[in-house]
């Protein structure tokens, strides 16, 4: 997060453009993509753990007993659509259309919040159905995986809303459009992780 919002360009100051860098690319964007590359290994590890343990339910419920596919389909859909609104925000930021940028940032944050709300609902429901965090290996690895994703979404929402406030008060250091774009990249990444989770964890039964 700290470098999502980082605008450090040192000798290659942002207003001088990225043309001075060796590749002609922005430092922050390179760093962001690299960070997303490393996040693949983080989520890969969590997904693998889940895959290994999904059948080890002990005396607790099994995946197909608790998963509510219609509900999860809707929440996946919501997150997918938030990617659309995010990309509209980025596009507006590049066009220096502040009103649309602000609007789509807020809409994205709201859609993300509904998604997280849905996740909180889902967790509560699972808990009531006898699937606590430490009930079984399946439940622990499920909660850790989706919980990590949920935390990523939440961090994203906080960044979106904070960015909205900073844009309003003109407090974004460095390039505004680039900052929006970076948060956008992060947001889309969270979305593609969910695309994988939705298929591998929810749709393909253990």
């Amino acid at each position, binding site marked *: 997060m700290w470098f999502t919002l980082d605008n450090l360009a040192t000798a290659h100051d942002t207003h001088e*453009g*990225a*043309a001075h860098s060796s*590749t*002609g*690319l*922005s430092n922050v*964007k*390179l760093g962001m*993509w*690299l960070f*997303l*590359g*490393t*996040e*693949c*290994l983080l*989520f*890969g*590890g969590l*997904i*693998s753990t889940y*895959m*290994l343990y999904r059948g080890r339910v002990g005396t607790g419920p099994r995946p197909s007993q608790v998963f509510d*596919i*219609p509900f999860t*389909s809707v929440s*996946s*859909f919501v997150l*997918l*659509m938030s*990617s*659309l609104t*995010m*990309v*509209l925000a980025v*596009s507006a930021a*590049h*066009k*220096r259309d502040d009103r649309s940028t602000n609007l789509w940032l807020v809409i994205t944050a709201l859609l993300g919040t509904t998604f997280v709300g849905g996740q909180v609902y889902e967790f509560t429901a699972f808990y009531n159905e006898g699937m606590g965090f430490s009930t079984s290996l399946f439940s622990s690895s499920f909660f850790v995986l989706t919980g990590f994703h949920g935390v990523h979404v939440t961090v994203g929402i906080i960044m979106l809303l904070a960015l909205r406030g900073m844009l309003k008060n003109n407090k974004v250091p460095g390039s505004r*459009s680039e900052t929006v774009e970076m948060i*956008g*990249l992060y947001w*889309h*990444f969270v*979305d*593609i992780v969910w*695309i*994988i989770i*939705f*298929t*591998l964890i929810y*749709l*393909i039964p253990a």
Partner: protein
Amino acid sequence: MNTTSATDSHATEHGLSTIGYVRIALILAAITGLEVSTYYVDFGRLFLPALLIMMVIKFVMVVSYFMHLKFDNKVFSWLFYTGLFLAVGVYCAALATFKFFG
């Protein structure tokens, strides 16, 4: 659409138009619908490959269009896909030692 040269990477006009993005989103929504339908309709032996293929298509579409990887400098693709393929390869190999794949 061909603004892949290094100096243009910052150009504001790269990527799709608003309509283009909406179109991508609609395709994604349609694929999601198809994915969910596997829950209700029996796809038989096609079930697993179909789901995986749809997942990959969605993934690639979001990465390529929403994240602009298709229009951006190749360095970004390189950085991201290195991590991705490394993760897939390494973790699949690890799961294979647990006889996960049968």
